[in-house]
């Protein structure tokens, strides 16, 4: 699969990264001089920002070839069309309308290169009243995702961590692109214009927006943030040497067994916490309201975790089937034996950027394993390979193009 990558920042580059990681030949096009603005995203190697030291850029752009090309220059757009004819797939993340203005619309591309697949990633999609609206990750989570439901009712709605919405969109765009490509592999010359709206990837996500939306239609309820005081058993507890996340929604007797509390509660037939509370509230002579009981159980749980090493408490809960996990910060993720032993990490070194231990393979594929073929390109690194080697320009053409500000 040959991919012409016109994307920038995070969502688009993650999409083309996944394709490159599993074997596609990807040529990444950046504007001359400044390059992909993603090159200016932290973190940088040794906190020293240069165009080659953004760790995030290098993570997002490994396994790609990199060239510079000014698409706003008429000659640049013409060369871009040549490259599009080489490619099976063109992927872009401009504001809708830009591709038309520089002569790279789907209609035009499919005229000169029938069967081409164009994947467009944009904030709100190629059509509709918001198509020119601006957005960042938090904007998309607010308008399309379940932000109203994230956080606590006492405070403002909250976004998720980092730029997860953008990465998620990139992944869906990669999958959509492969679907169109799969169809083309089977039936000649069926091109496609894949229209990925970040807002729609948020609104269509099972975490937890689709459930909230369907529930609203079923019941008319409006779902906003929960109270911090809402009866809930579990939390993130400090252990002797780390934090443990414990969540109790089922297997309630097993939790008590794990903590060595065999009493009448343990012998109860209740399987889930909700069923237990039902029984508790309906039984005669129970001194506590179920909310207070939950609080009391929470205190007991916390005390129990506090007195133990994290790994030991975790293993004990797991033996009894209680949902639980090490609550890691980045150091913990790097140190975790499960990620390391299973080969999540890769070490990548670039000539101008230093070495880094990055997340490497995503899935483990028996026949088509992930490969680190090359580090992310320095700005314009592969201009000679692509313009001279592939498109047949001469070294003199190249320096002329450079003087004209085309590359």
């Amino acid at each position, binding site marked *: 699969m040959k991919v012409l990558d016109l994307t920038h920042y995070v969502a688009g580059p993650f999409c083309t990264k996944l394709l490159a990681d599993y074997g596609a030949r990807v040529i990444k096009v950046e504007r001359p001089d400044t390059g992909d603005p993603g090159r200016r995203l*932290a973190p940088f190697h040794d906190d020293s920002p240069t165009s080659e030291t953004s*760790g*995030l850029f290098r993570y997002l752009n490994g396994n790609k070839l990199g060239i510079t090309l000014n698409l706003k220059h008429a000659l640049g757009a013409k060369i871009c069309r040549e490259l599009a004819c080489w490619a099976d797939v063109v992927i872009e993340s401009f504001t809708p309308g830009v591709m038309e203005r520089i002569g790279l619309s789907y209609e035009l591309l499919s005229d000169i290169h029938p069967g081409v697949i164009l994947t467009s990633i944009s904030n709100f999609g190629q059509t509709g*009243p*918001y198509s020119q*609206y*601006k957005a960042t990750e938090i904007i998309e989570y*607010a*308008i399309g995702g379940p932000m*109203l*439901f*994230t956080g606590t009712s006492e*405070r403002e*709605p909250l*976004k998720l*961590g980092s730029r*997860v919405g953008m*990465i*998620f969109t990139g992944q869906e765009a990669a*999958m*959509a692109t*492969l*679907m*169109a490509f*799969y169809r083309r592999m089977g039936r000649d010359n*069926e091109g496609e*214009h894949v229209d*990925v709206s970040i807002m*729609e990837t948020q609104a*269509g996500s*099972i975490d937890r927006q*689709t*459930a909230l*939306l*369907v*529930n609203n*239609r*079923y019941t008319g*309820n*409006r779902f906003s943030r929960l109270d*911090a005081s809402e009866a*809930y058993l*579990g939390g*993130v507890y400090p252990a002797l040497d780390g934090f443990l996340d414990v*969540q109790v929604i089922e297997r309630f007797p097993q939790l008590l067994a794990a903590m060595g509390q065999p009493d009448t509660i343990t012998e109860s037939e209740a399987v889930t916490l909700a069923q237990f509370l039902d029984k508790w509230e309906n039984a005669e002579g129970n001194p506590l309201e179920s909310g207070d009981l939950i609080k009391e159980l929470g205190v007991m749980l916390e005390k129990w975790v506090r007195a133990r090493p994290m790994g030991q408490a975790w293993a004990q809960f797991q033996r009894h089937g209680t*949902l639980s*996990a*090490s*609550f*890691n*910060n*980045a*150091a913990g*993720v*790097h140190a975790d034996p499960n990620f390391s032993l*299973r080969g999540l990490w890769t070490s990548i070194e670039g000539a101008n950027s230093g070495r*880094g231990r990055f997340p490497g393979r*995503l*899935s483990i594929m028996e026949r*088509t394993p992930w490969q680190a073929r090359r580090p992310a390109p320095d700005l314009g690194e592969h201009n000679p390979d692509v313009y001279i080697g592939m498109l047949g320009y001469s070294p003199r053409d190249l320096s002329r193009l450079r003087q004209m500000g085309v590359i």
Partner: protein
Amino acid sequence: MPVRKLPLDGVRIVDQTLAWAGPFGAQLLADWGAEVIRVEPLQFMQRATRAPNIRPFKRPTSNWANDYPDGIPGERHWNRHLMFQVHGRNKLSITSDLPDPDCMEAYLKLVSISDVVMENNVPQTYDKFGASYEMLRQARPDIILVRLPAYGLHGPYATYRAAGRQMESLAGHNWLRGYRDETTDESRDLISVRGTTYLADAVGGASEAFATMAALCHRRATGEGQLVEVASADAVVHHVPESVIDYDLNGRIQGPLGNAHPSRAPQACYRCKGEDNWLVISVGSDDEWSGLVRAMGSPPWARDRRFSTVLGRYRCQEEIDDHISTWTRDKDHIELMHVLQSEGVPAATVHDQEELYNDPHMKARGFFQELTQPSTGTHSYPGMSWQMAQTPNPIRRPSPMLGEHNEMIYKDLLGLTEQEYKRLEDAGHIGMDYPAHLYT
């Protein structure tokens, strides 16, 4: 425009997924044309799949993930619970109790005419079904088996139980979410982590579907099937790369930023007129700042020289946030979004569910689609996660009832005789009801 077949037309998938993540991955493939056949046990209910529990909830509940149309469980509540209705569309359902030998024979027959098998059980649970990659390959040499464990098929935590939240805790995402002032070195009891909104299920499901597509393309090119393993926790790490890379490059441990951005400011969520109405604004460049100042009517405070550069605004963001909050408090959140966008400022309301259904942009793009399902009635549902401009794609069928397609698949597709079918039925493997003693 000639009507095109959906891209995955002709691909048959045996779907043994459960809960949220696996079914979401299968949904994305079903949405784009794959014939996804859910193979569901009849002797027990898969956990958190057709409903959280085989016993219907009797008392009314305000739980977001736990309801039926009009709050009524009704007959066969597993066909009415929203949990399944959010990811079941475009799929078929048959029942089968593996590893019963008769069921296994029919299952392997189905595998022999399928392209992909998908599952996301705890690894040892899948083994208990009695199937293995080797067995599937004997039935269909080029089969693609896609497995989505929480932490891996092998490794120290292979047998550990986890829901989405645990995978996110292990992978470091939960450390990064939360209000900025919510955590201390001693306490990490994040309310935001306590069980409302997760990430791992969507990420796991999408990773699973992407890997399936990569394997399908490889098979179309070479004829080779393969075993694919996607661990959800691995996928979550890939969604928070900044944090793990910053630690590796600079030894820095990033904490929660709340709604702030590492380099843009002001960026926050501001209260507007009404009970629980909010607006998010995200300003980075000088142009966006000027647009915001214009939209606010160029108030004197905004002329402060400290606010004239990106860095200055970053340093003074709390002060600026206070000013913006005062401005938004008595204004309509939806109107403000459009005012700000017309000035070139990234801004949006925090939509509630009703507002999203009524959003004119979503309407113009036809995102929501009405479906009629015999057991739930007629409702509007979220549609496709993306569009293909050359291939209009309405939802083809609503979520199947349990065992709805038994006859069609067992008799018409697999060629079971009446007698063979009846034997499975009499043995309690084929049907549309779980055994009554489980839920009455």
